[in-house]
């Protein structure tokens, strides 16, 4: 007889534990505002990333099309993946001295692991992380970018 009682009480206890779980799911079912899903493509206009979010490496230019990159190549050395190539050119200054300037700062976004080492190690703070994240393109050659804009030159007063 006691075996039957045990059986019945086990069944009832089991059902009770199931109801306990159902209470939680029921609670959230009737409170949809507690649901955290982001409606991503719809909220693109209002979506704001954190300011430190690492999306891609960019080189900020001021309104005169000037940047801070000296072409020292430290970012190229510190990159673990070889995603940066620095091509420098030599120009003749008016006073007859030769000076090395940046010709192309080539950045392969497709090979970049967004580790931030280049940004951290750049001695003249010439590159920063941008908050963009929609990087899908049709052809991977589009992922190779030249960060210094055409015709740009170095800002006055950047220490070499």
């Amino acid at each position, binding site marked *: 007889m006691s075996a039957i009682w045990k059986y019945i009480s086990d069944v009832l*206890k*089991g059902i009770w*534990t*199931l109801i*306990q*779980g159902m*209470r*939680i*799911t029921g609670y959230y079912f009737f409170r949809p505002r507690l649901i*955290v899903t982001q409606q991503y493509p719809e909220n693109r206009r209002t979506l704001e990333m*954190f300011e*430190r*979010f*690492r999306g891609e490496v960019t080189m900020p230019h001021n309104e005169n099309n000037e940047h801070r990159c000296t072409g020292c190549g430290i970012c190229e050395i*510190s990159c*673990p993946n070889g995603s940066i190539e620095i091509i420098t050119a030599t120009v003749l200054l008016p006073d007859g001295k030769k000076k090395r300037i940046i010709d192309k700062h080539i950045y392969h976004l497709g090979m970049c*692991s*967004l*580790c*931030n*080492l280049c940004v*951290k190690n750049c001695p003249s703070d010439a590159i920063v*992380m941008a908050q963009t994240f929609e990087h899908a393109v049709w052809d991977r050659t589009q992922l190779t970018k030249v960060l210094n804009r055409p015709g740009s030159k170095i800002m006055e007063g950047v220490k070499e």
Partner: protein
Amino acid sequence: MQEAEPDRIETQEYLVNMGPQHPSTHGVLRLLLKLEGEIVHHVDPHIGYIHSGIEKMCESLTYPQIPYLTDRMDYLSAHMNEEVVCLCIENALGVEVPDRVKYIRTIFSELQRLASHQLWWCVMGMDLGALTTFFYGLRDREKILDIFEETCGARLTLHYSIPGGLMFDIHPNFQKRVHDFLNYFRKKLPEYDQLLTGNVIFQERTRGIGIFPKEAVINYGVTGPSGRASGFSCDVRKHLPYSAYPFVSFQEALDDRGDTLARYQVRIKEMWESMSIIEQLIDNIPEGDVQVKMKGVVKLPEGEYFQRVESARGDFGVFIISDGKKSPYRLKFRSPGFSNLSALHAMSKGWKIADLVAIMSSLDLVIPDIDR
């Protein structure tokens, strides 16, 4: 021709592949099962499907570049992986990092442990057929990932620790957000128990399943929550305290039943402990720098260095042999997942396939950690 008698059906052992794309193997782990009917006689794990040669790659990277790569091993305890390499390099150089760095690293480790256990919890529920847990676990994990993202700009592969300190100082909102999270999660964690732990189906599928005695745990080198569930006190945070762990008091979550339910409950207890550790540290972060000035080219003195930390899965170690150059001569990781997996065949022998899934979930395997 004689007809076979119907009551003399012969059974025989047969082999079945579980994985490498099976949902409950959490990645590309292939288990070769030797079965008799539904009973598992032997499990043969075949690993290496996502071997990425991280140890070998480290030999060609400079020391400051190594931590970023270790994020990709056990991606659920990314911060601990970085921390162990940084600690090893700092110890080898004799660099003492400021207390502020130690505190922040410890808070990050514990947040990372919480995030990892949350993911483990929701996946364990899902493996056993309770899909709801998956959404609730991820919902709470999202809050931690937001904290990470605000301070270091990434959610999974943080790259926050670097040799000699931290990549950035904490974000001004960091402490407030952590407090908010703790208040929030303290209310949510009892829900986990209510939803899954007490559930009769879950209890029936885990209690007494895959019992693993303490001697076997030690012999197989099972560490972390899986080892502590069998009564093996192996918490590196307690026995070889590093970073800010000497300054906090916490209980090592131990259990001596050694079954799947014990492994589950040890992790739930660890979540409470992690919250208490964060609480002790978060308001007392000392002022100071977050970075020691390091040389431009970091070179370790010739020799062999070893450092251990407690990752979310167990005892994580790194062994560096340096020949005085700017990259290591050899670098070896001791990953907890690998040793824990080695015990799977002994744990699951004689149990059913469905039990094997529960046992494997309770080990909390991360496959890149095993394959590296």
